[in-house]
């Protein structure tokens, strides 16, 4: 009997890579206040905006997926910050009141 596990983003990233898909990896690198996902959590995104995993409770995933398209395009990593202090972030809805920093990079 193994633990009840959610799908593992890093395993899925490797299998997507094996299928020849372009993959971006987003990682929570810092959190302040109440944040739904701990530091180290991953969201992986392919060029068709398919994604697995999470960097928040679903609040900012849409914005990260959109940014990942640019990362896949030019290969340059980006640091994104979301929080209540940021008007745009409020719109995408990190409504728990926390702030998070998400690093988005291309695999390969």
């Amino acid at each position: 009997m193994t633990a009840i596990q959610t799908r593992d983003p890093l395993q899925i990233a490797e299998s997507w890579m094996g299928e020849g898909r372009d993959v971006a990896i987003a990682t929570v690198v810092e959190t302040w206040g109440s944040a739904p996902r701990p530091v180290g959590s991953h969201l992986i995104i392919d060029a068709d905006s398919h994604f697995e995993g999470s960097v928040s409770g679903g609040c900012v995933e849409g914005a990260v997926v959109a940014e990942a398209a640019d990362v896949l395009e030019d290969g340059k990593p980006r640091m994104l910050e979301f929080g209540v202090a940021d008007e745009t972030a409020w719109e995408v809805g990190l409504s728990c009141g926390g702030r998070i920093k998400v690093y988005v990079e291309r695999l390969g």
Partner: protein
Amino acid sequence: MDPYSLKKLNALRKERRAAILLTDLGDGRDRVIAEGDAVAGALGEAVAKAFRSGKSGTVVADGRTFFLNVHLPPPRLVMIGAVHISQVLAPMARLVGFDVHIVDPRTAFASPERFPEVRLDAEWPEDALARTPLDPYCALAALTHDSKIDDPAIRRALDAGCFYIGALGSRKTHAKRIERLTAASLSQTAIDTIRAPIGLPIGAASPAEIAVAILAEIIDALRSRGIEPRKGEAA
């Protein structure tokens, strides 16, 4: 991320080895550090601390900013004894996120009917644990009340550095166990790490309540493993 880093990290995780993905946030370069790999200087200290605490985070070393993503193996609970307590403890531990492995050479106890969907080995601990070795991310609960079965497993757990070793039985039973282990030339320091009587003292009576007490004690051991006292606790 370097595809080589991803493959190496996934391979180490599959082998139940602790690893850190180290990313230089300045230039985006990354590498994988396995537990035990030598890392020099200030970064080395941060890496060692991260392995101990299991906490991922950002560190500044030698004028560069690094992100350390710590991947510790999922904790595994190995129960020696396919007993009534194990029947309740197995699904509880699984809900909490543990892999579960039950070993009991007595086939009347270790029957798949009593343990549906459980990783169950109806053999002696020496054999089962030789095939599936214990490691520092394993907890061992010795639950048979039979020293022929429990003792060899406890000794293996001590050798492997399991983060938790608990043994069922009264204080009197445990005193006899200590005598046997001392006679087998185990050190007092090692013997002192065995939790007995097993479980947090919550007045547990039924097998299910005892399972709660054991699981709570295991979580306590896991979360205080090699780190500073938790918030709100005295040193």
